[in-house]
């Protein structure tokens, strides 16, 4: 059984709690363990915080996809990844965002939005066990 669901949120700090409510519902329906759900919520929240703080987008999408062995959550904004800025500046005031995501998830893939092709996508994969 595969479940897929996508929601769009305004790129504001107040959306982060709504994103987590959405993920908690999806995780519960998919029967994801509490530990894996905790890690996924933390990792995806960091990705969404980056979209809110740094993308310059008005909104971002969160796409949930669960499969038999893993859950995949993609966060997609409409912005430009600030690759020309030092990483410490990109993430301020987060600073820990990307290292945290990689520590908590089994796989993190970032495709960077550019000026000619905007939209940064962070895809976070968490195994069920």
């Amino acid at each position, binding site marked *: 059984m595969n479940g897929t669901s996508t929601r769009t949120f305004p790129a504001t700090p107040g959306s982060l709690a709504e994103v987590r409510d959405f993920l908690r519902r999806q995780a519960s329906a998919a029967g994801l363990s509490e530990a894996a759900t905790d890690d996924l919520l*933390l990792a995806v929240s960091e990705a969404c915080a980056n979209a*809110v703080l740094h993308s310059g987008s008005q909104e971002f999408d969160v796409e949930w996809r669960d499969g038999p062995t893993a859950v995949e959550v993609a966060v997609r904004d409409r912005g430009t990844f600030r690759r020309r800025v030092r990483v410490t500046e990109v993430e301020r005031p987060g600073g820990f965002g990307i290292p*945290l995501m990689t520590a908590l998830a089994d796989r993190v893939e970032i495709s960077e939005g550019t000026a000619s092709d905007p939209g940064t996508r962070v895809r976070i994969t968490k195994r069920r066990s």
Partner: protein
Amino acid sequence: MLEIATTDDPRGLRLTGEIDLATVDDLTAALEPLVRAGGDITLDLAGVRFLGSSGVQVLIRALDTLDGRGRLLLARPGSSVRRIFEVMGLSRFENLEVGA
């Protein structure tokens, strides 16, 4: 949503809700006078459902500012809060204690 209540015994804050970008400034403001005064500060985290890296950074700044003038005691963290403490390596701070 984050509710913050001041506690006298132990001296500190009781936090209920979620600590993220939307609420972290409230935590910073509530902690500031306690940190400035110095002494041990207990944060009751039993009601904290989520704590993101922005919240942990506030705790780290408080530890740096306390710098020998007191400890930060983090009481009753749930599984998710324990997890981010572990991943962010908070055990390296000598003036931090994570309670049961």
